[in-house]
């Protein structure tokens, strides 16, 4: 798609000139200039909190810039609210979808723009026809009569895109569109983006995932700490260059770790069977061993039983049959407390739902599992001073920001919330550390930190079980890779010998040859 990047500059559809946005003393956007051409995918790259979303919210009329101007097709425009933005041909697909779940796809698409006849009843036939036409034009396949709550996340995103197209958007802003999608859905989305630009639409893609920018974007503007760093042609720039511009220093994608001979088996699962809430067997005769001094990566596509497996081995879900052993001790169907006591720690998949009590302070969260133990409590009375010192120490060691143990957890950024969890779990000094999607939604700097923490744990001769849907992560961090498919292990590979094709095949249920 690189050839389109050479489009003439008079094709510029959106120009944001010298945009500055201040919140009190804080400068979120500092003199940023951005121009988007017709028919291009323009990526906006930056770490969490760099100011990407602020800039796009200005374009979408949610914020007004402190100084600076916006030109649409060369004409100076003031965008006062989202309705205004839509009128001017700007549509936005938010990271968290804005759909009415009990309504059908078609009802959601026309919501707010309903055509009615003279007595005010909906002209649904006409709406259905239009929805059908648009979805065919851009090959965005949806079932207009299906209710939103019954369709997949990928499909819901298509509905959001159709919604903006139905409103006549020429410029589409997509905010972290792949964060919630499976690999196949991401693939599908990339195809859609190509189709859209071919039809003359322009797309602004907010992302911090380099790979997808490389894959989809023509040009890329990098923002760091509110300032524009550069706008580059994606085809002429390497991922490493993009990353170093984003974080302001060299970034190594390869996780540094020395060869290490794994020790004895510390954790094993034998013929585990676990059912989900609908009583369907999600983990089926599953067996696995993790050794001291190794990181075992569990690869697989989301929904193949990973969640149920983690819940079962951490005591949050019932084991139907089979055994879970740590250090030779049977912990099958023990309570979460007993399992934590037997030296298993878990960085949970959903940090806001499981990992943190968001309304608690950082220091209260730091002792979630240990609050009843000495020195944090004595005979049921909390020792606030000891808890504070403990939290302060961890905040420093794990570089949690802001460095304030009294902060309420929900006010921290995602990366710092994750640091709190990692600090807490590692401080338990576990023999087995389970890390479930530990880098989801984090930016490059934070990801590096998480990976280093896992490797440190391994180097301290502990066992690490990494569950991730990101193949790159699995391949970079793990020593051995087990692939899970439909509740079973389809094969275990040495990470050094594994290649992405073989793993991809196994994740789809195929067998490995070099097993």
């Amino acid at each position, binding site marked *: 798609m690189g050839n389109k990047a050479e489009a003439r500059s008079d094709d510029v559809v959106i120009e944001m000139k010298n945009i500055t946005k201040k*919140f009190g003393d804080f400068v979120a956007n500092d003199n940023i200039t951005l121009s988007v051409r017709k028919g291009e995918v323009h990526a906006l790259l930056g770490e969490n909190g760099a100011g990407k979303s602020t800039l796009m919210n200005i374009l979408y009329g949610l914020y007004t810039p402190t100084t600076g101007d916006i030109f649409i097709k060369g004409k100076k425009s003031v965008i006062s609210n989202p309705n205004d933005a839509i009128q001017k041909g700007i549509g936005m697909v938010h990271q968290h979808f804005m759909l009415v779940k009990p309504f059908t796809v078609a009802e959601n698409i026309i919501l707010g723009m309903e055509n009615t006849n003279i007595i005010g009843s909906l002209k649904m036939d006409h709406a259905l026809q239009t929805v059908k036409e648009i979805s065919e034009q851009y090959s965005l396949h949806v079932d207009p009569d299906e209710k939103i709550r019954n369709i997949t996340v990928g499909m819901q995103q298509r509905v959001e895109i159709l919604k903006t197209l139905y409103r006549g958007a020429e410029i589409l802003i997509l905010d972290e569109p792949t964060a919630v999608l499976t690999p196949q859905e991401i693939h599908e989305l990339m195809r859609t983006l190509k189709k859209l630009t071919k039809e003359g639409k322009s797309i602004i893609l907010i992302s911090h995932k380099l790979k997808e920018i490389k894959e989809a974007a023509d040009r890329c503007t990098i923002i760091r700490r509110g300032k524009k760093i550069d706008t580059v042609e994606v085809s002429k720039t390497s991922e490493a260059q993009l990353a170093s511009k984003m974080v302001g220093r060299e970034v190594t994608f390869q996780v540094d770790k020395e060869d290490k001979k794994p020790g004895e088996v510390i954790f094993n699962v034998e013929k585990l069977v676990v059912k989900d809430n609908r009583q369907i067997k999600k983990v089926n005769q599953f067996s696995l061993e993790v050794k001291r001094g190794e990181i075992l990566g569990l690869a697989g596509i989301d929904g193949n039983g990973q969640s149920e497996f983690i819940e079962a081995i951490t005591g949050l879900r019932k084991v139907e049959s089979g055994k879970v052993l740590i250090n030779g001790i049977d912990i099958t169907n023990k309570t979460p407390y007993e399992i934590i006591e037997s030296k298993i720690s878990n960085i949970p998949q959903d940090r806001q739902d499981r990992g943190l009590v968001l309304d608690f302070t950082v220091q209260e969260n730091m002792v979630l599992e240990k609050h009843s133990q000495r020195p944090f409590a004595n005979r049921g*009375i909390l020792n606030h001073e000891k808890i504070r010192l403990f939290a302060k120490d961890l905040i420093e060691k794990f570089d949690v920001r802001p460095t304030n143990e009294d902060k309420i957890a929900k006010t921290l950024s995602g990366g710092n919330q994750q640091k709190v969890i990692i600090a807490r779990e590692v401080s338990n000094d576990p023999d087995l550390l389970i890390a479930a999607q530990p880098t989801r939604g984090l930016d490059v700097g934070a990801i590096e930190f998480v990976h280093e923490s896992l490797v440190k744990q391994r180097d301290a001769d502990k066992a690490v079980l990494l569950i991730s849907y990101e193949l790159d992560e699995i391949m970079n961090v793990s020593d051995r890779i087990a692939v899970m498919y439909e509740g079973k292990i389809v094969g275990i590979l040495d990470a050094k010998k594994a290649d992405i094709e073989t793993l991809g095949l196994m994740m789809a249920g195929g067998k490995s040859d070099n097993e």
Partner: protein
Amino acid sequence: MNKRKIYNFFSNKVFLFTLISILAGLIIGAVILLFAGFNPLRAYAIIISGVLGRFKYISYTIIKATPLILTGLSITFAFRTGLFNIGAEGQFIIGAITATAVGYFLHLPAIIHIPVVIISATIAAGLWGGIAGFLKAKFGVHEVISTIMLNWIALYFQNYLVYMDGFQKPGGETSYSIQPTASIKLFGEWKLSDAGFAWFNSNPFLRDLFKTPVNFGFLFAIVAAVIVWYILKHTTLGYKLRAVGFNKNAAEYGGINVSKSMIISMTIAGGLAGLAGAVQVMGVTHNVSLLAAMEGFGFDGIAVALIGNCTAIGSVFAGLLFGALKYGGTKIQPAMGAPSEIINIVIGTIVFFIAIPRMISLLIKRFSKKDRL
């Protein structure tokens, strides 16, 4: 508390909101009084002098406030741990029945009798509250539903007991009164004796004060408030309960037994409401009577907890305010013919405005999104 802390407390947003809500409630009450043809300033003056004018009035206000503080604490405690205890009403009744029965049937010296009555009433009501916690933990029955049901069961249970032979006072619609040894009224017996009568006559100030059923109940309420504050803030139990209240998934993941926490929380909440019932019987009524409807101690407790921003100390002050309005409000009827129901409107309006700040701050958040990150 040092100066800075005191300053922070009073400049606290929640405190200001509460104050504004109380003012707004009083203003709306004034408007209603005005429409009904009464001078609101005079009405409020009557209420104020009716509450603070004499030691006797202050004493009555505190007596009125005591059970409300305790039911307020009950709702506060449950609320802070993520549960909505509508059942304080029924737990109050169970506490009152138990206090009456233990106070009447047992014959013990006062020093033993009083603690025995208090403890048994608290435990009985705690178990009653625990039923709702158990139903929620075991079968997922929502505590609002189960406690409403339990309220009615408690009410009819009391009416059944009041008519039981050996408990019903012959010829009346009340039970027998508790033994004097179970009373917590100050100088209860002595006041009525010849010596006491003579002594009080020579001390008109004290006579005024002790004419009321002044009792130790308020002390119990204060102690209970301190205990509630201490449990929530300084114990591992409080930590566990609050963690479950905020996010039970994270609590479960962190090794906290969620079901157990719910049962304990409802048991403590029930115990507090039961203590309110016991204090009312031991200090004021000395018996239980046939109930045609709910007395409202538990429901008023919900308002007290809300006005007190669901804190222990807040419940004490809100309970006192409530007691003052309820007691002072009765005085505008004889003095100027204004219906004392106006006071209920004032209280309702205050609660309404207390609820609104939450709404207002939500709205502010919504609209100021424009200028937030």
